[in-house]
C-alpha cells in the first residue's frame, strides 16, 4: 500500500485531483450537518447576488444556492458511484464470461454488447429516462445501461489474454472449477484496468446525470447540479451565478476524478512504472 502511494504521489496532478475530490466528498458528507433541511426550502428574497447575506446567493425562488450545491454534491456522487458500480459489475460479468469461454458464448455476448454500443449513449439515456419516467432509480438504471459495454469489452480483452497464460493452464490441469479460475486466478490479475476505467466511468456518469437534469429529466424531488444549471439557464443574463456556481462544481469534480483516474493508471500499470 505504501509502495502504491509512492507511485501515485509521483503524479502531482493526481495528488491535486485527490485533494479536490476529498473536498467534494467532505462537502457531501458534512453537508447535512449544516443543511439538514430540504435544498428546495425557500429561505429569502429571490435573486440575491453571491457574497451577500447568503454566501452563494439565492435563486429565482429564493432558495439558498449553497444548500443546493451541498445537496447536489450528494446526488451527483451517489448517482455516479451507484451507476458505475452497477455498470462495472454487469460489464465484468459479461466481458469475463465472453473472454473466458470464447466460442458461441463470446459471439452472443459480444453481439449484444455491440448492439448497445451502436446507440449514441446520451440519446439512449434520454429515451430510457423518458420511458421509465424521471426518478433517481431510473436515472441510475439509464446511466448503467449506457455505460457497461465499454467495461465488458475491456474485461473480455484482458480475460482472453490471461486465458492462455501458464498459471491459468496450470489451474485447469489441477482440475480447478471454472468459477474458481475466473474469480481467484484471472479477475485479480485484471483488477487494475478495471479500477482505472471504473474511476473514469464515475466522471462520465456524473456528466450524464447533469445533462439529464439539465434537460429536465432528473428526479424533480432531488436537488442536483444539472438541475440547478437547467433552472438557471433562462435567467443567465440577469443572474449569472445560478449557472456558473454549479457549473464550476461539475467542472472541478469531473476534473478531480479524471486526474485521480490518471494517477491510478500510472500507479497500477506495471509497464509505466519506470517512466
Amino acid at each position, binding site marked *: 500500500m505504501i509502495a502504491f502511494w509512492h507511485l501515485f504521489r509521483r503524479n502531482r496532478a493526481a495528488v491535486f485531483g485527490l485533494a479536490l475530490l476529498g473536498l467534494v466528498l467532505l462537502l457531501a458528507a458534512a453537508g447535512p450537518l449544516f443543511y439538514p433541511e430540504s435544498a*428546495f426550502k425557500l429561505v429569502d428574497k*429571490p435573486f440575491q447576488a453571491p457574497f451577500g447575506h447568503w454566501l452563494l446567493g439565492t435563486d*429565482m425562488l*429564493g432558495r439558498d444556492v449553497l444548500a443546493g450545491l451541498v445537496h447536489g454534491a450528494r446526488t451527483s456522487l451517489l448517482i455516479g458511484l451507484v451507476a458505475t458500480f452497477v455498470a462495472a459489475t454487469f460489464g465484468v460479468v459479461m466481458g469475463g464470461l465472453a473472454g473466458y469461454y470464447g466460442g458461441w458464448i463470446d459471439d452472443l455476448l459480444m453481439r449484444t454488447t455491440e448492439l448497445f454500443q451502436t446507440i449514441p449513449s446520451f440519446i439512449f439515456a434520454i429515451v430510457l429516462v423518458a420511458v421509465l419516467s424521471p426518478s433517481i432509480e431510473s436515472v441510475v438504471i439509464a446511466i448503467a445501461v449506457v455505460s457497461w459495454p465499454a467495461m465488458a469489452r475491456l474485461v473480455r480483452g484482458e480475460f482472453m489474454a490471461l486465458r492462455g497464460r501458464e498459471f491459468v493452464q496450470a489451474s485447469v490441469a489441477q482440475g480447478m472449477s471454472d468459477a474458481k479460475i475466473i474469480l481467484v486466478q484471472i479477475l485479480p490479475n485484471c483488477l487494475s484496468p478495471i479500477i482505472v476505467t471504473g474511476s473514469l466511468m464515475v466522471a462520465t456518469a456524473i456528466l450524464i446525470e447533469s445533462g439529464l437534469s439539465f434537460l429536465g429529466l432528473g428526479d*424533480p424531488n432531488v436537488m442536483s447540479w444539472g438541475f440547478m444549471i437547467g*433552472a438557471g439557464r*433562462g435567467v443567465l*443574463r440577469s443572474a449569472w451565478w445560478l449557472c456558473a456556481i454549479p457549473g464550476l462544481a461539475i467542472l472541478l469534480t469531473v476534473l478531480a476524478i479524471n486526474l485521480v483516474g490518471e494517477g491510478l493508471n500510472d500507479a497500477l500499470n506495471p509497464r509505466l512504472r519506470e517512466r
Partner: protein
Amino acid sequence: MKRLVRAAAGALILAMAALPAAAQKKGGTLVMVVLPEPPTLASYLSTSGPVGQVAAKVYEGLLEYGPDQKPKPGLAKSWEAAADGRSITFKLQDGVTWHDGKPFTSADVKFTLMEVLKKLHPRGGTTFQALAEVETPDASTVVMKLDKPAPYILSALSGYESPMVPKHLFEGSDIRSNPNANKPVGTGPFKFVSWERGQYVRLDRNPTYWRKGQPYLDRIVARFIADPGTRTAAMEKGEVHYGAFGAVPYVDIPRIRTLPHIDVSTDGYGMISSLMQLEINTAKPPFDKVKVRQAVSYALDRKFMIDNIWFGFGKPSTGPISSNFQAAGLYEGKVRDYTVKDAVEIANKLLDEAGYPRGADGMRFKIVHDMLPYGDEWRRLGEYIKQALGNVGIDVTLRYEDVPTWLKRIFTDYDYNITSTFYYNLADPVMGVHRQYHSSMIRKGTVFVNGSRYSNPAVDKLLDEATVETDPAKRAQQYSQFQKILAEDVPLIFMTEMQFATVFNKKVKGAFDDALGVYSSFAGVWME
C-alpha cells in the same frame, strides 16, 4: 330591425372615427415571431395558438370585436337577432372576393358553419350546438336557425374562432386532409405566399381587399425561432417587430422594456381570459373532502407565484370566471377570500378539522403533484407548491411526465391527486367555463374537460339555465350564484388570472385596436 339599424349606424360611426387618423402610413414589412411553428394553417380544424396567429390574417370571420369585446362588422355588415332568440340574420359585405378571385357568398358561410365548424372544429361543436340550420335567402343574406336561444354565438364569430372558408375549394373533398391546410385561401387582408418550413410564413398585401385603403402593410412575415434567447435578441435588434404569448420570455421583459424602441402590452387577450388553476381529483381521498381542498387554497400564496414565477404578470383569481367579464356583468368578486392574512393558520385548522392531524414527522398525509409538462414555469410552480404545502403538513412528491402521459393520467385514468393547468374562459362562459364544471363533461378520454370529476346538481342546473337565458340581468344572477358555490367547493384551486405579454417595436401602430390582439387580421396595423 331596430338592432340592424343600430349596428349599421355603429359601423358608420366607426368608419368615420377611423378617418381623422389618416396619418396611417402605407407600406412596410411587419415581422412577427410566432411560437412554436404551427403544424398547419388549418385554423378551421385547430384552435392551437400559433395556427390562429398566422391564419387570422388570411381567413376572416363574420364579426370582429373592439377592445370592449362588443361585436363590430366583419364579413357581415349588419346582424339582427330575432326577439325569441331562435334565429340570427346576417347581411354580408358587398364585393368581397376570395384570394383566388371567386366571389364570397352566403353559400360559403352556410358550408363553413354546417360542414366545417360544427362538425370538425374542436370548439365548434359546443359553440354551434344549438345551430339547427342555415338559410340563405339570397347571396348576401345568412339566417342562423337555432333550436334554443344561444346568445353567446355572437361572441364566437371572429376570424380566429370561426374562420370562413371557401366552399368551392373544400366541397366534395375530405376537409381534414384538404391541401388548403398548408396554403390557405381566404378573404382576409393578407394573401398566403409561401412557407419555408422551420423558418417563416410570408403573407403579402391583398390588393383587392374589400375594406378600401386597407391593409396598410405590404407584407407580414411570421418567423419561427426556437431558442428563447435568440427571440429576445432579435427583438432587441429590431429584426422582429412583434411577438405575443410570451414569445419573449417573461424573465427578459423587465430588461427589454427599458429599451427606447421596445414596448410591452398585456392588451389583446381579453377574449381568451386564461386562468391558472390546480385541477384536483375530487373523487379520491384526501381531496374528496371540501375542507382539505379549501386548506390547499388557503395555503398557497398567489402573489408569490405572480411575482417570482411569472415575473409580475397576472393577478390573483377568485373563482372560475375571469374578472375580464366584469364589463359583461358576469363576474362575481364577492366570494370566499383565500388571500387573507392568516391564511396559513386557517389552512392548518381546516386540515385538523378534516381529520388529518400532523404525525410525528410533522406531516399529515402524502400526495403527488403532477406538474403541467409545458416548461420551466410549471416546474418552478411545482417546487413552490411542494414547499408551501409542506408548511401546512402536506408531504408533496413532484412528478413531471411527457404531454401524452400527463393527458392520459388526468383525463383518462384519473390517476392523480393534484395537477397544475390553465384554461381559457374564451369569449363567453358557455364556451370556456361550462366544460370544466358541468357533470355531463366528465368524459373519460376527452382532454381539457371536467377532469376533477366535480358533480353538483345545483351547479348543473345553473349552467343549463345560463346557456339559454337571454335576459342579461338574470344571466348575471345565475353566474354570480355559480361562482359563489364554486369558491366554497373548490373542485379546482383558483390561482391566478394569467396575463400574457406582447412585446413589440414602437414602430408598430394600431395592433391593439381589436379585442383579439394577435388573433386579429392586422388590416389596420401600420408601421411608422
